[in-house]
């Protein structure tokens, strides 16, 4: 059984339909990359999976269990953790406190504050610093660590490289490779197409709230994705829209 099934999901922001009937599945241990232009609905989709948005229609199934109306804090206990866009740390609280918050409803497992600090050694001296005073890279590491502290089965990463220097991004991705190797299922939203294709097993390209292209990251060509990205490619007919 698939770990997560998304079925005809529709999410609205007021009058605006951000996600317009998206369906896909993800298997255990798989890494799925969501790509697409700004406003394509990637972040909304990810946040809906985490429970931050209530879908207007469609279903979410985790291991076959209906997740659609489960509140976000209970989804953490079911094994879903989100690293939100913009990191969304509790800036009045310390690194350690932010990490411990991740344990609030998490599943049993071997992630601990020390293990996170081993994974991101540059956080070690900042353990008792308020996260509001950290650099972007340190903040991103804390945000990832906070999500890991709940021992997630499905990790959702939203634009983890945004605003970071290439060097730091390399470091973050090296850490992600470790997670992937350990069998964590990951859905990541990434602007950098090369990185997205390199790290993932499968890629979904979104356009205006719909899935424009889906395929294996190894088999698919960069050109195909780029076309879908700009709406020059249609999955079914392949015709160019007017």
């Amino acid at each position, binding site marked *: 059984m698939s770990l997560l099934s998304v079925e005809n999901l529709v999410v609205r922001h007021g009058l605006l339909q951000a996600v317009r009937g998206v369906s896909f599945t993800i298997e255990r241990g798989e890494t799925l990359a969501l790509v697409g232009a700004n406003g394509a609905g990637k972040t909304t989709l990810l946040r809906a999976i985490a429970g*931050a948005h209530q879908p207007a229609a469609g279903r979410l199934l985790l291991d076959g269990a209906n997740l659609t109306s489960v509140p976000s*804090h209970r989804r953490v206990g079911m094994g879903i953790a989100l690293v939100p866009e913009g990191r*969304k740390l509790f*800036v*009045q609280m310390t690194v350690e406190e932010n990490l411990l918050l991740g344990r609030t*409803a998490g599943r049993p497992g071997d992630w601990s504050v020390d293990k996170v600090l081993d994974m991101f050694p540059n956080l070690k001296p900042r353990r008792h610093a308020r996260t509001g005073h950290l650099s972007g890279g340190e903040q991103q590491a804390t945000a990832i660590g906070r999500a890991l502290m709940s021992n997630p089965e499905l990790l959702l990463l939203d634009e983890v490289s945004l605003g970071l220097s290439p060097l730091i991004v390399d470091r973050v991705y090296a850490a992600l490779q470790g997670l992937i190797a350990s069998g964590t299922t990951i859905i990541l939203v990434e602007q950098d197409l090369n990185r997205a294709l390199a790290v993932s097993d499968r890629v979904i390209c979104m356009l205006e709230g719909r899935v424009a292209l889906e395929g294996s990251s190894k088999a698919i060509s960069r050109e195909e994705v780029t076309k879908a990205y700009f709406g020059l490619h249609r999955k079914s007919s392949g015709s160019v829209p007017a």
Partner: protein
Amino acid sequence: MSNQIIQGILLGGYYALIACGLSFMFSVMRIINLAHGSLAVFSAYALWWLASRYHVSPFVGLLIVLPLMAAIGWALQRFLLERSARGGALLPILTTFGLAIVIDNLLFEQFGADTRSLAPYIGSLSYDSWEWPGSIYVGKLAVMMFATAIVLLGGLQLFLTHTRLGRSIRATSEDPDTAGLVGVDARRANAIAAAIAMVTVGLAGAFLGMRATFDPYAGAPQLLFAFEAAVIGGAGSLWGTLIGGIVLALAQTLGAQVHPQGFLIGGHAVFLVVLFVRLSASGLGLRDLLRLGKTS
């Protein structure tokens, strides 16, 4: 004079007690509960009722009244404040104001206009005092009140920084949506915070009844005292409420020296002066001034 100063400082302990619940609820839920004072008076009446009717000492009565206050806080958040806060920042003011009117008048209906006091039920504690060097007499009750304030504020601080629940409450106060995404049940955290706030209100009500008299409409001045102490001292930490309470009490004591009617005037005046200085100096909103220090 030094005698008066010491009495003033000790009275500040009471104001800190009544202010800390108001300040706590504001920092967590961004709601100023206008029924705050009325709920403190309700607690005083509950203790008085237990004492006069069933001869339960007010200290034993707290074992019943404080859990009751916690339950009231929980229900208040779940059934009133949560719903009204969804309607914007202004609606909770109206809801809690309406609630204050209901509580005040129900108390009047039940207990009449007579002023009451818990003093007759606490034996000699209400008038016993210690003599300090320099022939200064300090009331045992006043010292107890001050010590309670310190223990309560310190306990709250430890709770907020060192327990999982405390961290959940702080996370919710900072960003309820993200708190949910990391696994914190924000509704539960808010309801627990409201319950804790009401326990402090219950304690404050007990001391209000022991150190003075109260009547059904005594809630409004208590709300004003709580608000003034919270604003005067609320620059950085929970301990600010204690400082605010002391400043308020000293200003009242000083006012009373100047004029027979000066007790309340002195308190209100120092509040407005502090407010004026802060607002002109910082240019910040009061929101920043009232905010509790998280970990200082």
